[in-house]
């Protein structure tokens, strides 16, 4: 019963974080701050949702696959964000310094 409640809380929190990241992408003024908003949803929202699913499946091959997916997302998402920011800065997008 506790497991059910816990994975329910994780899944809903992950979903809400995703929506918050989606709203953040629209509200932030310039590209580099939007990169931060997208970064939030990539890592923490994925962690919460995948751990919520992992709780449901217990110790099995399925939760091992979930851990693997989360490991790949954890490694590739920051690298992609870094490459994106690097390309944007190189491509001439100026960060908005003072409001």
């Amino acid at each position, binding site marked *: 019963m506790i497991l059910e409640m816990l994975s329910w809380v994780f899944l809903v929190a992950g979903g809400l974080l995703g929506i918050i990241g*989606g709203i953040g992408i629209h509200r932030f003024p310039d590209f580099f701050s939007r990169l931060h908003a997208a970064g939030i949803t990539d890592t923490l929202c994925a962690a919460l949702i995948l751990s919520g699913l992992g709780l449901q499946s217990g110790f099995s091959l399925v939760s091992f696959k979930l851990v693997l997916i989360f490991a790949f997302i954890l490694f590739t998402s920051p690298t992609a964000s870094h490459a994106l920011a690097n390309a944007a800065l190189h491509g001439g997008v100026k960060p908005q310094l003072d409001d």
Partner: protein
Amino acid sequence: MMYAAAATAILVTIGLALARALLGPTVYDRILAVNMIGTKTVLLIAVFAFLSGRTDILDIALVYALINFIAVVAVLKLVELGYLFTSGDTEEQEAKPE
């Protein structure tokens, strides 16, 4: 039931990211939105695997996470350098850089 809630939340996030992809002033906003949609699709597949009970489609989510990253890096190279790969005649490519 909770899987449906998580799936709708992820769909709303994908909708918001799609709106940013359409509105995004710079091309990098669009790449950012596409990257976000890709990551959310991975989560959507994972949630759908549990929703439908067929957990063997988690491999698809795994492959999608990798290909999403490679696609973002490839598009960035295309945007930054103007070409993705030169078809062998490199001297012609160097002659006119843009």
